[in-house]
């Protein structure tokens, strides 16, 4: 499958006639009195790389285990390719899973590990051999077929686990924290490789991760989960730029939240009166709310300008004092305090190697942003 025909480019979720490949309908899972997954509904399309993103205990792994058949929903329905999966055990599903611990069989060689699924299906020996060889070269493990898992590095084990879960050409592949055990450099390389493999094979991937950066890089769409529910589904861009709740805004990336009430509500703009700022905040797009309603303005640190004096044309300008500056290499983060006592984070890319005129801690500055930079969330 080439880039032009992948789900990433075709965006089947925007097409009202597209048929979802995986349908999760009102699925709830309870363990005793504890509700792990609470009335989740979700459609995933053929060829997508969908990430379920959430903190530990949010129910994302339980949802994944229900897709694989290791847990059965307490109520609700899961359909894969139009087929109801109720009561179908894992070994009778055309889905496969890559486990967080990789779960390689310690007593079998790399080759035997990868071949296991085909052997169980009674595939002829000659075909198994060619498919294993193909798979080994796809994950770049040629020459390691005879090794045992304990003779491999972490990255190599991860590839064996991936190859083993892909060899049966599953309709749907579940990956539980697939890159969680790798170090940062290796993780970034493997992310790109994983996308390449997914698009080459055209298999639908559902990935569970707690790492928001990983979810942003990997996914065609992602779902943010908390307390057993999916709070927002969308492309990485949509979820980052248009978060629908304070939780999502705060969970994905970093954000400044100004609490306030709608003071003026027009079709093309709103004015929010906030106790966090001395002057009202102008937002240059209409929102669905009524005058007087309590809302929050969410503003990303990189969307705020910081100068000793900002041009008056900027819609929102506030005086502030710099508390400290964190130098992170690629960017600097300014922690500033407004006269109301509200603390705000502002980040700027470090374009120059050194700057004698840089803003330092203790200085009085102005921060500002235009009307389109912020998002108003009501929940």
């Amino acid at each position: 499958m080439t880039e032009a025909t992948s789900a990433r480019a075709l965006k089947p979720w925007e097409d009202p006639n597209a048929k979802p490949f995986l349908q999760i309908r009102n699925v709830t899972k309870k363990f005793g009195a504890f509700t792990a997954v609470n009335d989740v509904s979700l459609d995933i399309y053929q060829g997508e790389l969908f990430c379920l993103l959430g903190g530990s205990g949010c129910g994302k792994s339980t949802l994944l285990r229900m897709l694989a058949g290791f847990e059965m929903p307490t109520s609700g329905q899961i359909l894969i390719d139009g087929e109801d999966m109720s009561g179908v055990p894992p070994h009778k599903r055309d889905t496969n899973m890559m486990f967080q611990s990789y779960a390689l069989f310690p007593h079998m060689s790399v080759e035997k590990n990868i071949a296991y699924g085909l052997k169980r299906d009674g595939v002829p020996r000659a075909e198994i051999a060619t498919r294993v060889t193909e798979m080994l070269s796809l994950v770049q493990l040629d020459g390691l077929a005879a090794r045992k898992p304990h003779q491999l590095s972490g990255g190599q084990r991860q590839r064996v686990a991936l190859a083993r879960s892909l060899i049966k050409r599953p309709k749907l592949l579940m990956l539980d924290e697939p890159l969680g055990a790798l170090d940062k450099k290796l993780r970034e390389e493997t992310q790109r490789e994983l996308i390449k493999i997914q698009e080459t094979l055209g298999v639908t991937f559902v990935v569970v991760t707690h790492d928001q950066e990983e979810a942003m890089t990997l996914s065609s769409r992602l779902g943010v989960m908390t307390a057993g529910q999916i709070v927002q589904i969308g492309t990485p861009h949509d979820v980052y730029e248009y978060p629908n709740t304070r939780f999502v805004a705060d969970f994905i990336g970093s954000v400044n939240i100004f609490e306030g009430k709608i003071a003026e509500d027009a079709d093309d703009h709103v004015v929010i009166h906030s106790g966090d700022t001395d002057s009202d905040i102008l937002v240059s797009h209409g929102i669905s709310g009524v005058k007087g309603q309590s809302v929050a303005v969410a503003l990303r640190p990189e969307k705020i300008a910081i100068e000793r004096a900002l041009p008056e044309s900027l819609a929102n300008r506030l005086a502030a004092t710099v508390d400290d500056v964190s130098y992170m290499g690629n960017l600097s983060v300014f922690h500033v305090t407004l006269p109301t006592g509200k603390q705000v984070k502002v980040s700027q890319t470090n374009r120059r190697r050194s700057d004698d005129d840089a803003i330092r801690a203790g200085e009085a500055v102005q921060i500002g942003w235009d009307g389109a930079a912020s998002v108003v969330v009501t929940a």
Partner: protein
Amino acid sequence: MRRSFSLRMTAFLGFVFLYAPILSLIIFSFNASKLVTVWGGFSTKWYAALLQDQQILDAAWVSLKVALMSATIATVIGTLASYALARFGRFPARMMLSGAVTAPLVMPEVIIGLSLLLLFVALESLVGWPAGRGVDTIVIAHATFGAAYATVVLGSRMGSLDRSIEEAAQDLGARPIRVFFDVTLPALAPALISAWLLVFTISLDDLVVASFVTGPGASTLPMVIFSKVRLGVSPEVNALATLIIVSISAVILVAAWQMQKSEAQSH
């Protein structure tokens, strides 16, 4: 690192305490004199006499048969019991099973022997089996309390087993019974070997339970040794004991070497 004199002395005394009796037994098995406590020169004649003693050879054969069979049966029962305890979650009679499994570990041997004897006698009069007492009943008795030891050894390994490898096998299309043989059993292999060896040695060693449940014509090695020693310790018994020590040490060395190998593999 330099070790102090007192530390080395303590270690030396410890080893003397543990090994001196065994060493003196081995030395006196080569004693030419018939008197156990008087050294009469080096000789291997007691080993030769041992091979002529039909009673001891018969008893050794009985003990070996009993130990082989009871260790095998106990390991199978122990595997199933520990699997049920570790995997089936809460099920009715779970408490009863785990209690029954550990009871033989703490119960006095005399009581185990007596209760099994009463059971065998009652069964014989009720269903006619086991007809009389002998090797069969000793095997059943040893397998019964051996299974308790096997369950404990296997249970700890089963508990530390990564469940996701079983799930992975099932996910790849293996039915649960297939998963057990393909993945669970190989992962348990080191524990299976040590459980089997443990029950094997306990069975070889047992005097009390075997004395209760045996019948005419089936005397185990410990029973023969015990009856011989009551008539005075003979150098022949020393020779026999030396042979037992040598063979058991060999088995333990092999087992330890095996364990180390598999440990390195699944680190």
